[in-house]
């Protein structure tokens, strides 16, 4: 097992290199000169000053050289100072990481705890109206734009019914440890973020469960007189869940990527919102750190997924 984890870690390195090249290329090939952008409007600046600044920031070197310079520093956690906040970019982002992780993990828990039972119930009640409702819900949950559902929820629960707050982590001025207040704030964004996953899981698990319950060992379990509940939850669900671990991959991507829009809709102060704001004001160091941090988050969650898969299914080896 240790060997597997180690080799899987090695495979993450080329991926991270690829991501860094991509991020570097997108930001460096963009039109517009960051030095001119940030000296724009400065009165007593001469052409020599601009050239000096360019040399100072290493912008006069060739692109591959600039890339190596950037990566060398980035590995050590130095993405440069934010042009807006005049503080190192990485700590700025890491301060906002807990909010994003909170949102994503609550959403993940919701996905699993709603999606899995729905899928099992649909499979067991196959062909009935319950099954049909769940299947229709699964298709709808997949096709609906999440930010739109977010807006509709705000209209319904925040504007009309006034049950839930429409934005932020917690009520301003409240105690930071007021858990009730925090739960109220996280319910809507987490559920909206989880929606696609709930749909996906219920659909996936329905197919898997149907597949498993038609197998011989389930008939054997029935034949030896086990109660239905035990057959389903102990014998069938265990095997139906194994392929679900692979399905986690795209869903994690949805959680990280989707958080950008959802954080915007619900004014959630996470890395998605921060990177978005940085992109709008062309704050290059923060943009680059933002994509690297969110991608690393994704690479790490893929890694955890693969390790989890290797644990539940010992046949798996690194190819």
């Amino acid at each position: 097992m240790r060997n597997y984890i180690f080799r899987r870690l090695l495979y993450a390195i080329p991926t991270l290199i690829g991501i860094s090249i991509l991020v570097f290329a997108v930001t460096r090939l963009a039109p517009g000169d960051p030095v001119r952008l940030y000296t724009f409007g400065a009165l007593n600046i001469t052409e020599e000053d601009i050239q000096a600044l360019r040399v100072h920031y290493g912008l006069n070197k060739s692109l591959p050289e600039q890339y190596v310079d950037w990566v060398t520093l980035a590995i050590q956690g130095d993405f440069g100072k934010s042009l807006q906040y005049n503080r190192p970019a990485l700590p700025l982002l890491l301060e906002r990481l807990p909010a994003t992780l909170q949102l994503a993990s609550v959403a993940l828990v919701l996905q699993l705890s709603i999606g899995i039972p729905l899928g099992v119930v649909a499979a067991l009640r196959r062909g009935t109206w319950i099954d049909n409702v769940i299947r229709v819900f699964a298709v709808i949950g997949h096709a609906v734009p999440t930010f739109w559902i977010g807006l509709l929820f705000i209209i319904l629960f925040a504007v009309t019914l006034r049950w839930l707050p429409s934005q932020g982590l917690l009520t301003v001025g409240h105690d930071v440890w007021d858990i009730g207040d925090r739960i109220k704030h996280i319910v809507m964004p987490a559920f909206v973020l989880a929606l696609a996953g709930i749909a996906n899981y219920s659909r996936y698990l329905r197919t898997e469960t149907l597949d498993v319950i038609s197998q011989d060992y389930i008939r054997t379990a029935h034949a030896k007189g086990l109660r239905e509940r035990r057959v389903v939850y102990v014998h069938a669900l265990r095997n139906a869940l194994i392929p679900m671990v692979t399905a986690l991959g795209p869903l994690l991507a949805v959680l990280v990527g989707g958080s950008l829009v959802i954080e915007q809709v619900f004014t959630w102060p996470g890395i998605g919102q921060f990177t978005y704001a940085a992109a709008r004001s062309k704050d290059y160091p923060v943009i680059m750190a933002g994509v690297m941090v969110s991608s690393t988050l994704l690479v790490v969650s893929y890694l955890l997924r693969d390790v989890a898969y290797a644990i539940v299914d010992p046949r798996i080896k690194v190819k």
Partner: protein
Amino acid sequence: MATVATAARPVEVGQRKVAAGLWEDAWYRLRRDRLTIGAAAVLVLFVLLSAGAPILAERVFDTTELSQDLLKTYQRPTLDPPKYLFGSDELGRSQVVRLFYGGQVSLFIGFVAALMNITIGVGLGLVAGYLRGPVDDVITWFVTTLNSVPILFLLVIFSALFAPSAFLLTVVIGVLFWTGVTNFVRGQTFALREREFITAARTVGATPGRIMTRHILPNVLPLIFVLMMIDVGTIILAESALSYLGLGVPPGTPSWGSMLTNAAAYIFKAPWLVVPPGAAIFLTVLCLYLIGDGLRDALDPRLKQG
């Protein structure tokens, strides 16, 4: 004698040609799938309404895409006059007309970018799956890398820094969303290249290029259409999210996503503005997914769920 003939008839009526090909077979099943046909009809209607937006605006709604009426802002939805069918926004613009124009953007980007994705995805998938070795390693590296970046982050940054035109945006989406197709085609090619008919083709001296395009491609093509429908849906969702963030097509062009940005800004004043653009995105994507599902069942009934 006559009784025998009439007895035999009903059987013949229900029967179809014995040696129907894959596509006739699929079409036979598809025609009987009411849900898929309905979804296709709705999608075609949306395409027609979007394409006919200028004519509809002039003839039916008696207004244009840009005409404002500052005395008639935040009109509630009404049938009188018809141009306020879905109400009006903060500039008194007809929402229904803007909705049709917005459809042009979403549908164009969706279908054109998906076509690019499919082309790239199928090409790379075939090459990776058939040639294997270092070529496969490089392509797999591309796929893993792209899959490990939250694509929406990348799109947001690209749009913010490059301020792309609608066409450039389409191209960028077209070169970013192909990894799923490649994975699928690569997997299929892996399996197909070991089959006897490929060995036979190789024995008679067919070049790798010919084997890939003439022998492997036709076998994966049917399901590519399914993937394409789902792909178009995914792209429309991504584009609308991007437009919602104010980073999609350049401002001025109405798109479903940017109409929602507007609606969100006036959510307390005019909550009804939120419904039509979102419903349009949702219905379009829903129809595309349903068509995708229906196509898959029609092309390969063994995969049918339920």
